[in-house]
């Protein structure tokens, strides 16, 4: 993303109790823009988005596919797998399994690829204060 132009305009309501949280002075905003356009931050953002966005698309599609199969593919869903267990039941359990796996996978990714980058950037920001 491109470097934000620094303006001297203050935020619209600087007097709220959250003023410090929601509206940084121009100098600080400038630093945020600097960090935002840094290569390290670009990597952190890419590591987050390129993982979370496609995965979200995937699990929502998988869930909707399952809903649609339940609605419109009754014969397929009713076919026997083992004993009284049918395809519908197995696919339902598979939704549980994929949910657990995605949660675990994302956490592993976050711990390895996101947390160290985020911590380094935070340390840099806090040192600059």
């Amino acid at each position, binding site marked *: 993303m491109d470097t934000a132009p620094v303006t001297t305009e203050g935020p*619209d309501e600087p*007097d709220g109790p*959250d003023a410090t949280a929601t509206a940084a002075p121009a100098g600080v905003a400038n630093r945020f823009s600097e960090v935002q356009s840094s290569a390290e931050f670009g990597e952190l*953002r890419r590591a987050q988005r390129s993982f*979370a966005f496609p995965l979200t698309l995937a699990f929502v599609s998988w869930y909707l596919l399952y809903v649609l199969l339940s609605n419109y593919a009754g014969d397929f869903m009713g076919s026997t797998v083992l*004993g009284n267990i049918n395809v519908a039941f197995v696919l339902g359990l598979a939704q549980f399994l994929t949910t657990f796996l995605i949660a675990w996978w994302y956490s592993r990714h976050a711990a390895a690829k996101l947390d160290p980058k*985020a911590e380094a950037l935070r340390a840099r920001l806090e040192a600059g204060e």
Partner: protein
Amino acid sequence: MAGISSALHTGIPLAAGAASEHRTLIITLFSVFVAATLAITVWAGRQTKDATDFYAGGRSFTGFQNGLAISGDYMSAASFLGIAGAIALYGYDGFLYSIGFLVAWLVALLLVAEPLRNSGRFTMADALAYRLKQRPVRTAAGTSTIVVSIFYLLAQMIGAGALVALLLGASGEGSRRWIIGLVGLVMVLYVTIGGMKGTTWVQIVKAVLLILGTLLITVLVLNKVGWNVSTLLGRAAEESGKGKAFLEPGLLYGKDGTTKLNFISLGLALVLGTAGLPHILIRFYTVPTAKAARKSVNWAIGIIGAFYLMTIALGFGAAALVGSKSITASDPSGNTAAPLLAQEVGGGAGSTGGAVLLAVISAVAFATILAVVAGLTLASSASFAHDLWANVIRKGKTSEKEELLTAKCAAVVIGAVAIALSIFAHRLNAAAVVALAFAVAASANLPTILYSLFWKRFATQGALWSIYGGLISSVGLVIFSPVVSGNEKALFPGMSFDYFPLGNPGLVSIPLGFLLGWLGSLLSEPEPDADAKYAELEVRSLTGHGAH
């Protein structure tokens, strides 16, 4: 729709005959729960000194503790009694609910929990108003927080009143009102005295009780069928009288094209609603860091997932061991399936084991309702005090003391409103009310949450269009749906203004919420300072710099 939803969300065990014999035991167990949780609340109250303590429990909870508390907030009586009942009566179609409720948590984990934790402070609106015009956006987000919470709250209160009255055998109008009032009072005490710290501990205690109770029944059921799931399913299908169809999709939603569309609509609302529920979102503020927020969602996914897996044993177990005839005889929508199953696996009606298990499970159901109701009251009173009062009405010129006093007064008022509504509207279909809460959350809150976190061009007008548009369209479509009028199961069976054929508005109102947010932003000027503000939000939400 009406059938399964009322099974899911009213939560009314009607084990009238069986329960009346063992009232003393139920009352004792429930009183112990209330006494213990009130003691915790008083203890937590003593440690609650400032706004961070009251709204966010001092941000002192660990990921595991908060994961339990999230589970406690999420697994309402609807899940425990409703899904078990829905599976017991409709077989496979009931199980579909468990899946939607669980998968929904991935949206919260991957997209919302961590950035929200880093950029917000006390309420959902904190994060939404971050880089937009504070007052109008806070007003909108505060309004939708209160609307979602009150509808959710109302549903729980209706269920609570009916549950208490029926189990205690006090079916008269007078005792029902008295009991609803008492439930409301306990819940207001939790919130005003204990704040977020007290409420969180109540959720933790309740979650542990609910998991243990469910686990006990599951083990006893599996033991009866020789630990063979296929045997359990076979027996359930046989006892249901519907044969193989009981184990296949379609028993409830497969009737025609409209019921199928309705199912898609409901599925969409469930999977996208969770990440927009304000009482769930503010739980992310009770932990110190985004990492802890991630951890708490992971624990919640594990606990809630295990719980929903056990609903399979509960539901099919009730179908196999209690039988749908006995279940429908006790309660037409199946809400008593779990307590009846507890009685059955404990040794059957009339046995001591059966009586004890029935009492335990009923007390757990009470605890569940009480805890969920407290969480909702806290979310809405916090939003009123912090968003509407402190930042909009008083424009930030208020002391923390005044803000907290306002929050406590708001909790009393919201409690009173809930009590009043449920007294006058206890005939209301609680199902419509909770389904509405999920659909409203997905339509009015989720688009703004995602746009404000991930889209630089998002503007105040987009947020307002999306929140108000989602709110009005989802509430409006429910008003004109078959839930409210046009058939004998509706809220007003005598009237007919059911112009919208689906019981759940999600299929229309959720895409509309996203569309309005996008359109409203593009049709307005970019926010002044948009680049700098987005830079600040993005850096803070990803790095956790300056997080409260």
